[in-house]
C-alpha cells in the first residue's frame, strides 16, 4: 500500500514537469521578441523615449526588489531609498575620474579627504598594475564592479536593518524601516560620512552612458527579474510566501523566520543597491535630495497599483508610474479652462468605459471582454482623442499623438464584432445595432481625419448613443452618470469658445502627483490587491491551461466522492 502510494506520487510529480520543454522554447522566443522590440524602440531617435525606458528599467529593479520584502515576504518596508542611496553613492565614489577629482579638490566647500578621493577605481587599478581595466575604454568593467560593490554594501546594511524585523510586525516595523531609510540619508550628510559623500555637494559628472543606456538598464532588470522569479518559485520563495500568509503557521512548519526574513531584506537591499548605482548614472550625479522618501513612495505606488507580490504586476505598475512621470509634463502647463473641462470629460468617459469593462469581465468571468465592449472602449478612446483635436494647444496635440493609435482601436473591435455577428447564427439585436453604429462611427472618424470640424462634433452623437446603449454590461446607474457627466463636460468644452465662457487660463501645477494619487485610490477601491493581484504571468495563460480546474472525468469523480448517494459502497463502509 505504501509502495503503491509512492509510485503514484512519483508519476504525478513527474507529470507536473510536462510542459517544461515547451515553456523554455517559448521563453527564449519571448526574450528574442523583447530584444527586437527594444532594439526598434532604441533606434527611434528620441532621447526622451530612451530615458523613459531606462528609467522604467531602473525603477523596475527597485520595485521588483522591494516587492520581495513587501509583496512576497509580506513585511511592509519603507526604507528602500536608503538602500538605493548606499548603492548610488558607492558607485559615484568608485567611478571618480581624475577630472572630477580635480574639480572636487579645487572646490573650497569640498568635504572629502585625500583618502576618500583616492578610492576611485580607475586610479586604484592603475596603481595596482591592473592598467588594462583602467583605460577609458574599459569604463564598463569599472561600472560593473562599482554597482556590484554598491549592491553588496547595501546588502550588508540590509542585513542590519533586517534584524528589527524579527521582533516587530506590521505598522511598527514599517515605521522602523522608514526610520532606517531616513537615518541612512541623514548620516550620509554628517561629518563622519561626508568625506565619502561630499556632504551636501554630492558628486557631479557620474558617467551617464550606463544609466541612460537601454541595454544596460534592461539587461540588469532582466537579471533581477530572473533572479527574483527563480527564487519566488523555489522552496525558499515558498517559505517566504508562507511567512506572508501566516507567520505562526510557517514557524510551526519548520520555517526559520529569522533566517528567511533577514535573507529577504539582504537580497532585496542588494538589488536596491544596484538600482541606486544605475539611478545615479541616469541622473549623472549623486546628491542627497535624489534619495528622498518620495522615491520609495513611487515604488510603493507601483507595487500597490500593479499587484502586491506579483513580479509581472509590479512591472506593470512601474511602467504606469514612469509613464506619468516622464510623459505627464504637458499636463502641468497653462491651458484655458475649457480645455481642462474637456479633459475632465475625457477622464470621466474613460472611467465609465473602464467600469463597464470591469463589470463585464467580472460578471462573465471571462478574461477577454466581449467584442462589443472592446468596440465601445475603442470607439470612446478614438472619438475622445479626436474630440480634443489639435485646435486646443499642446494638450490636444499630445493627446492626438496617442489618438492616431486609437483609430486602430476602433477598427479592430469593429472587425471582431463583424466576425462574431457573421459567425454566430443566433445574432442578437444589439450586436447588429453595434455594428451599424460602428459603421456610422467609422464614417465620422474618416470625416474628422479629413479635417471637417463639423464631423468632429458629430462624433459626439454615436458616443452618446453608445454610452446610453442598454447593453447587459452597462446597465448600472453609475456608468450612465459617468457617461452623461463626461459628455456634458465635453460638449461644454466644445462650445465654450463660441459662448465666450471658460476662457481664463489655469496652470495644472502638480497634476501628475494628483493623477498618481487618483490612480492609486481608484485601484485600491476596485482592486485592493492591485491590477494583477497575485497573478503572475505564465505561459499557461496563453494556452488557457488551468491546472486547478477539473476536467469532466475529475469532476465526476469529485462528485462521486462527496455525494453519498452516488457512492453507496463507501457510505456503507464508513458506517
Amino acid at each position, binding site marked *: *500500500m*505504501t509502495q503503491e*502510494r*509512492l509510485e*503514484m*506520487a*512519483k508519476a*504525478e*510529480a*513527474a507529470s*507536473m514537469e510536462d510542459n517544461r520543454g515547451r515553456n523554455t522554447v517559448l521563453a527564449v522566443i519571448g526574450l528574442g521578441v523583447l530584444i527586437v522590440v527594444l532594439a526598434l524602440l532604441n533606434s527611434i531617435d528620441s532621447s526622451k523615449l530612451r530615458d523613459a525606458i531606462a528609467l522604467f528599467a531602473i525603477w523596475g529593479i527597485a520595485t521588483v526588489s522591494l516587492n520581495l520584502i513587501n509583496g512576497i515576504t509580506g513585511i511592509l518596508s519603507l526604507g528602500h531609498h536608503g538602500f538605493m542611496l548606499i548603492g548610488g553613492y558607492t558607485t559615484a565614489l568608485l567611478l571618480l575620474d581624475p577630472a572630477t577629482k580635480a574639480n572636487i579638490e579645487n572646490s573650497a566647500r569640498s568635504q572629502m579627504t585625500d583618502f576618500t578621493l583616492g578610492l576611485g577605481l580607475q586610479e586604484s587599478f592603475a596603481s595596482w598594475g591592473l592598467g588594462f581595466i583602467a583605460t577609458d575604454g574599459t569604463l564598463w568593467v569599472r561600472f560593473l564592479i562599482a554597482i556590484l560593490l554598491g549592491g553588496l554594501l547595501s546588502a550588508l546594511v540590509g542585513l542590519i536593518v533586517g534584524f528589527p524585523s524579527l521582533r516587530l510586525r506590521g505598522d511598527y516595523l514599517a515605521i522602523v524601516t522608514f526610520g532606517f531609510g531616513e537615518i541612512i540619508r541623514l548620516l550620509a550628510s554628517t561629518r563622519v560620512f561626508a568625506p565619502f559623500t561630499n556632504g551636501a555637494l554630492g558628486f557631479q559628472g557620474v558617467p551617464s552612458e550606463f544609466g541612460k543606456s537601454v541595454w544596460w538598464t534592461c539587461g540588469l532588470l532582466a537579471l533581477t527579474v530572473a*533572479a527574483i522569479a*527563480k*527564487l519566488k518559485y*523555489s*522552496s*525558499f520563495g*515558498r*517559505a517566504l*510566501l*508562507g511567512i506572508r*500568509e*501566516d507567520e*505562526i*503557521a*510557517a*514557524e*510551526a*512548519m*519548520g*520555517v*526559520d*523566520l529569522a533566517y528567511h526574513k533577514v*535573507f529577504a531584506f539582504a537580497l532585496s537591499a542588494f538589488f536596491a543597491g544596484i538600482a541606486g548605482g544605475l539611478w545615479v548614472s541616469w541622473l549623472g550625479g549623486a546628491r542627497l535630495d535624489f534619495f528622498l522618501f518620495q522615491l520609495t513612495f513611487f515604488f510603493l505606488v507601483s507595487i500597490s497599483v500593479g499587484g502586491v507580490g506579483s513580479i509581472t504586476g509590479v512591472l506593470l505598475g512601474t511602467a504606469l508610474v514612469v509613464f506619468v512621470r516622464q510623459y505627464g509634463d504637458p499636463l502641468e502647463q497653462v491651458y484655458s479652462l475649457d480645455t481642462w473641462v474637456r479633459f475632465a470629460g475625457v477622464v470621466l468617459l474613460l472611467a465609465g468605459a473602464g467600469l463597464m469593462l470591469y463589470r463585464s469581465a467580472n460578471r462573465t468571468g471571462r478574461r477577454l471582454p466581449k467584442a462589443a465592449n472592446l468596440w465601445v472602449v475603442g470607439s470612446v478612446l478614438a472619438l475622445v482623442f479626436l474630440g480634443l483635436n489639435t485646435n486646443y494647444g499642446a494638450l490636444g496635440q499630445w493627446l492626438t499623438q496617442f489618438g492616431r493609435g486609437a483609430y486602430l482601436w476602433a477598427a479592430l473591435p469593429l472587425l471582431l464584432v463583424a466576425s462574431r455577428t457573421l459567425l454566430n447564427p443566433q445574432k442578437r439585436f444589439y450586436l447588429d445595432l453595434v455594428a451599424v453604429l460602428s459603421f456610422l462611427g467609422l464614417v465620422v472618424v474618416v470625416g474628422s481625419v479629413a479635417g471637417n470640424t463639423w464631423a468632429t462634433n458629430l462624433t459626439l452623437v454615436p458616443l452618446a448613443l453608445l454610452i446610453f446603449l442598454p447593453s447587459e454590461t452597462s446597465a448600472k446607474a453609475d456608468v450612465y452618470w459617468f457617461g452623461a457627466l463626461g459628455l456634458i463636460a465635453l460638449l461644454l468644452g466644445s462650445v465654450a469658445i463660441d459662448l465666450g465662457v471658460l476662457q481664463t487660463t489655469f496652470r495644472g501645477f502638480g497634476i501628475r502627483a494628483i493623477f498618481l494619487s487618483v490612480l492609486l485610490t481608484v485601484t485600491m477601491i476596485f482592486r485592493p490587491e492591485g491590477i494583477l493581484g*497575485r497573478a503572475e504571468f505564465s505561459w499557461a495563460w496563453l494556452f488557457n491551461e488551468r*491546472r*486547478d*480546474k*477539473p*476536467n469532466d472525468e*475529475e469532476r465526476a*469523480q469529485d462528485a462521486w*466522492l*462527496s455525494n*453519498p448517494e452516488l457512492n453507496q459502497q463507501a*457510505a456503507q463502509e*464508513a*458506517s
Partner: protein
Amino acid sequence: MPLLEIDTISKSFGGLKATKDLSMHVNEGEIVSVIGPNGAGKTTLFNLITGVYTPDTGDIRFQDQSLVGRKPNEIVNLGVARTFQNLRLFMNLSVLDNVLISQHHNLKPNWLSAMLRLPAYRRAEREMRTQAIEKLAFFGPRLMSFRLHQPVYVLSYANRRRTEMARAMATGAKMLLLDEPSAGMNPKETAEITQIIRRMRDEGGYTILLVEHKMNLVGDISDRVVVLDYGEKIAEGNYRDVVSDPKVIEAYLGKKAEDDGQTGEVDV
C-alpha cells in the same frame, strides 16, 4: 522508553493556571488522546509542547532532548509537528505549495543553488514533490489531480483539515499533534478521518497525540486517553475505564446539586 515525556509542567497566564503540574508520556507508535471540557488546557498543552509557550516549571523531553526554550521551528526539526484547532493554512497558496513549505526545513541545497536550479536542488525539489503527493495520497483521491493546484481558500472545511494533516506529516516529524482533526466534519467524514489516523500510525509510522471532542473517534482509535480538567490530569488509561471514571463524568457533567450540600430547590 517513551518518545515524548512531559514532566510536571505548569503554565499560568496572569492569575489563571492553564496547566498545573501535568505529567504524561507518549510511547512510540501509540495513539494517545487528550480530552477534557472546554478550557481544560488541551490546546495550551499543545502550545507548550510545540514551543509557542514556554512552561513556567517542569520539562518536556522528546527522544531525551528537552524541548523547553526551543523555537517552534527547532522543535519541528527535532521531529514534533502539529495541526491547529482553528486551521492555519497558507490560504492563498495551492494545496501542493502548502505541503511543500513544511518540507523546506529539510532542504539541503542553499538559496543560491535554488536560484540557479542546480541539479542538486532539482533533485531535492522532485523528491519534495513526491513526498508531498505521497502524504496527500493518505486521503485518497480527494486532494489529488486538480485539487493539488487549487488555492486553499476554495477548499471545503474538511479538505482544509486534510491538507493541514498532510502538511504536518510532510515535515518529516515522528510525532504528530493533531488538534481536533475532525472538527467541522460530518459523521461520514469523521469515520474516514478515524481510519486515516489509524493508517497514519500503521503505515506512516507516526506517533500521534490528539485532542478531540468526538468521543466515538476517541474511543475508536486511542490506545490511551488522558483527561484534563482545569489544567490538571484527572484520569488516564484506556477509553472504557476513563469514561466510566466518576471524576471524568463530574468534569463533563458536573455534580449532583445535593452532593455540593446545596438544595436543588429555590425558595420563592
